[in-house]
C-alpha cells in the first residue's frame, strides 16, 4: 500500500487530479491542507478518489479549521496522530502538492 497525500484543492491545482493516474487499487489516499475541499460530497473529484483508491481519509482538524462539514461519508476522518501511523505503515508516501 502506498499513501497518496493530497495537499491542494482540485479547483485550483491540477496535482489533485494528476494523483488519480498513479493511484493503484490497493493504495490509500489522505486529504490534508486545501486537499480537504476535494472531499466535499457530490463533487466529481470526491467520487473519483472513492472510485480509485482502496481507502480514503481526511485529516479531521484541517476540515474543522476550514468549517467543512459536508464531506462525503465514505471519507474516514482521522487525527494527526492517526495520519502519522498511516504514513508509517505505507510502503511509500507520495505527496501531491
Amino acid at each position, binding site marked *: 500500500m*502506498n499513501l497518496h497525500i493530497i495537499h491542494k484543492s482540485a479547483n485550483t491545482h*491540477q*496535482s489533485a487530479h*494528476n494523483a488519480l*493516474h*498513479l493511484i*493503484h487499487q490497493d493504495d490509500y489516499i489522505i486529504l490534508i491542507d486545501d486537499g480537504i475541499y476535494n472531499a466535499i460530497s457530490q463533487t466529481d473529484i470526491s467520487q473519483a478518489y472513492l472510485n480509485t483508491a482502496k481507502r480514503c481519509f481526511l485529516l479531521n482538524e484541517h476540515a474543522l479549521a476550514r468549517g467543512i462539514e459536508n464531506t462525503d461519508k465514505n471519507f474516514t476522518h482521522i487525527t494527526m496522530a492517526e495520519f502519522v501511523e498511516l504514513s508509517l505503515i505505507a510502503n*511509500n*508516501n*507520495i*505527496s*501531491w502538492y
Partner: protein
Amino acid sequence: MKYLYLLRQAPYQSSLAREALDMVLATAAFDQHVQLLFINDGVFQLQKGQQADLLQQKNIEKTLQAFALYDINDVYCCSHSLQLRGLTTDNIDASAQVIDQAQCQALIQQADKVISL
C-alpha cells in the same frame, strides 16, 4: 536502494524542477540506483529545443544529457501526460521511454523509495 523520482514540474516556472534534478544527480552520485518518471507538466522538461538562455536560466534539456555520465539509464515518460499536452515522442528527448498507466504504477510498486517532486 532503488529510488524512483516522480518529476512533475514544468522546467522554468519555479526553481523546483532544477532543484529536483539536483537531487536526482546527488542520489546517483551516492551510488544509488535511480529511476526517473517524467509525468504531468514534468514531461515539458523533456521537450526538445529549449533555449533557456533567453530567460537567463540554466537549460534543463542540457542537464538531462548528463544522465548517462551519472549512470542514470532508467528514464521514463508518462504517455497519458504527453497526450494531454499535445506532445508526441517526436517532441521529446529520445532517451526517455514512453510508458502507459499500468507501467507507471508498476514502477511505483517495485521502487524502494519513491520521491515526488
